């Protein structure tokens, strides 16, 4: 199921956690900070239980639309209900004011780091355990073939609902951790941007594999940190990478890697390596040409008339120089045509290698 509104549970978890910290601090309840994410998780769970029943009636496109509508509903309500959500400024809290356990104040960032790491580890283990239960198995079955699940005697709606509730729970924990980390929760937590980022991470990493979203989250975070240092229009590259993944690698990065597993088992992977190396050169040339073109165009659109010696990806060049324009065009177009030939070669080699793997009986 494709959800455009996952940030709702993330954000509500965050808000509830912030309010919880404030209430605990005011009333001196004996609840230490490490348990607060559980409150966020419960908040996510409760809201997922409330909203989930309507939205999980259908899957696929209809579900995506409904989740988007609900997300907009909650996000715009957040700006109206000012007392609870704090309007545009958000709600803040002081995490050091709650009960101390083992003399950990959670003031310094390193302690928060360990807290987040511990909770993430617990959540990952819990999620992995969940996929091993009968419910987890049925979730996979509903994803692959809901009609057959119905024939077996399960209601796909109920299974989707359970999966949705668990997803809300984990999103709530994540929201609470974020709220503890930044000591603030504001309406941006609930917004479409947050949902979009999560979606990008999940699909770039690869759906259908347990480690896919983990890989995706790490990759996307590194990318957004790295790219934003290197170029001004990193969000554009980000969107284009996402489109490229959807177009050419529907299984995401993990799917791409897992495709090679049968070849490794059959020992025919070695044959692919020369083809990859040959294809790598023109593909790289094409990408460099493309990036040059984009940077030159961006320069002329955004800083027209400014200093033309710009720096992108750490490489300085002159955006006014006609030579640079020429190189960029040649690299882009020439690279594309040569790269296309090498891609065909890769496909042919791939088929050979896979056939041999099949002949050895290791690939389906």
């Amino acid at each position, binding site marked *: 199921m494709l959800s455009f509104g996952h940030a709702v549970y993330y954000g509500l978890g965050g808000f509830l956690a912030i309010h919880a910290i404030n209430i605990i601090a005011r009333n001196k309840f004996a609840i230490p900070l490490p348990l607060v994410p559980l409150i966020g998780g419960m908040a996510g769970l409760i809201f997922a239980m409330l909203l989930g029943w*309507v939205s999980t009636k259908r899957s696929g496109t*209809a579900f995506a639309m409904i989740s988007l509508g609900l997300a907009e509903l909650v996000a715009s309500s957040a700006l*109206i209900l000012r*007392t609870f959500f704090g309007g545009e400024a958000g709600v803040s809290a002081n995490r050091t004011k709650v009960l101390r356990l083992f003399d950990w104040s959670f003031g310094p960032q390193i302690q928060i780091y360990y807290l987040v790491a511990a909770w993430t580890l617990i959540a990952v283990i819990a999620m992995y355990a969940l996929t091993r239960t009968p419910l987890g198995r049925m979730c996979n079955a509903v994803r692959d073939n809901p009609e057959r699940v119905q024939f077996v005697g399960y209601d796909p709606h109920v299974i989707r609902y359970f999966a949705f509730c668990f997803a809300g729970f984990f999103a709530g924990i994540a929201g609470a951790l974020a709220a503890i980390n930044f000591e603030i929760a504001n309406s941006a937590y609930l917004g479409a941007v947050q949902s*979009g980022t999560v979606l990008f991470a999940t699909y770039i990493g690869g759906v259908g594999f347990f480690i896919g979203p983990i890989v995706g989250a790490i990759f996307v975070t590194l990318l957004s940190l790295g790219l934003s240092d290197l170029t001004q229009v990193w969000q554009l590259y980000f969107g284009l990478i996402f489109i490229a993944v*959807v177009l050419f690698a529907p299984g995401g990065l993990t799917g791409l890697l897992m495709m090679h597993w049968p070849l490794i088992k059959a020992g025919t992977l070695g044959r692919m390596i020369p083809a990859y190396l040959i294809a790598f050169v023109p593909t790289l040339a094409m990408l460099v040409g493309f990036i040059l073109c984009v940077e030159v165009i961006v320069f002329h659109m955004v800083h027209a008339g400014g200093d033309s010696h710009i720096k992108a990806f750490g490489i300085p060049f002159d955006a006014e120089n006609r030579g640079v324009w020429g190189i960029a065009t040649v690299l882009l177009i020439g690279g594309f045509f040569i790269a296309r030939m090498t891609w065909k070669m890769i496909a042919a080699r791939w088929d050979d290698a896979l056939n041999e793997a099949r002949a050895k009986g290791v690939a389906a």
Partner: protein
Amino acid sequence: MLELFVISTLNGILFGMLLFLMASGLTVIFSMLGVLNFAHASFYMLGAFFGFQISKWFGFWPALVIAPLLAGALGAMVERYGLRQVHKYGHVPELLFTFGLAFAIEEIVSIVWGKSPVDFRVPALLDFPAFTLFSTNYPAFKIFMLVISIIIFVGLLIALKKTRVGLIVQAALTHPHMVGHLGHNVGRIFMLVFGVGTALAAVAGVIAGPALVTQSNMAGLLGPILFVVVVVGGLGSLPGAFLASLLIGLVQTFAVSMNGSLAGAFGPLSPDLATTWLSDIWNVTIAQIAPIMPYVLLVLILIFRPMGLLGTRET
């Protein structure tokens, strides 16, 4: 009160017709290709920005024709070289593709035209009050918008009901495989429909651009409402989309112009609750909740009539 009522009705119908210009394309694309085009509102935005640029170079009237054609050609190319590649992976990747596209288009637009609103003016020819109603001047450009949307609506109706192409499109709405079996080039019909649908959205963009704000976040603001229209009307139902567009147009316009609140209506009761965190709900005016009205409608429809107002299909 009567003045408010008449003006709000006019504005509501106008907004509804604009929504329908976009929702019609979205609905037809959805019924034929099974793809919910997330980037539909982006083409509306592209239409507005192309219109702005072309009207700066050649004037508004050429822009009204050229901008939709450009956007439509772009849409057709997106279908041919993008969507058709993803089609083999299923509907959800198609949806994701259009989602990524919407993201990329917004970035490109904000790079090219900047993030702040551009100065897209009403053409001088139409910059006068059409009539004065109860001391309110109603601008001629809004009447022009209304006329254009109605002309396109009628044209679309005739094209769908009376022409051969319309016949094939209608057939493909309900029985896409049968149409393919009968020897029509379904791929080309898809490309055509996608192109025409995005061009319609771009027309809406060109005529809405001067009246509303032309800005790089306009797609993000309108997109979700468009989906609400399509779901409320019933997935894949054109008359449903028409009805839902007008409904949402009217609901939103009327909500904005009303100023009542629970506190206003039941003020003297003033329960103790009103002073706690519930005071927001107590004091909020109808005008303030106008932005969430469409989504409330969406949730209500989903609970009580999941197939939409005039929809027949469950999925």
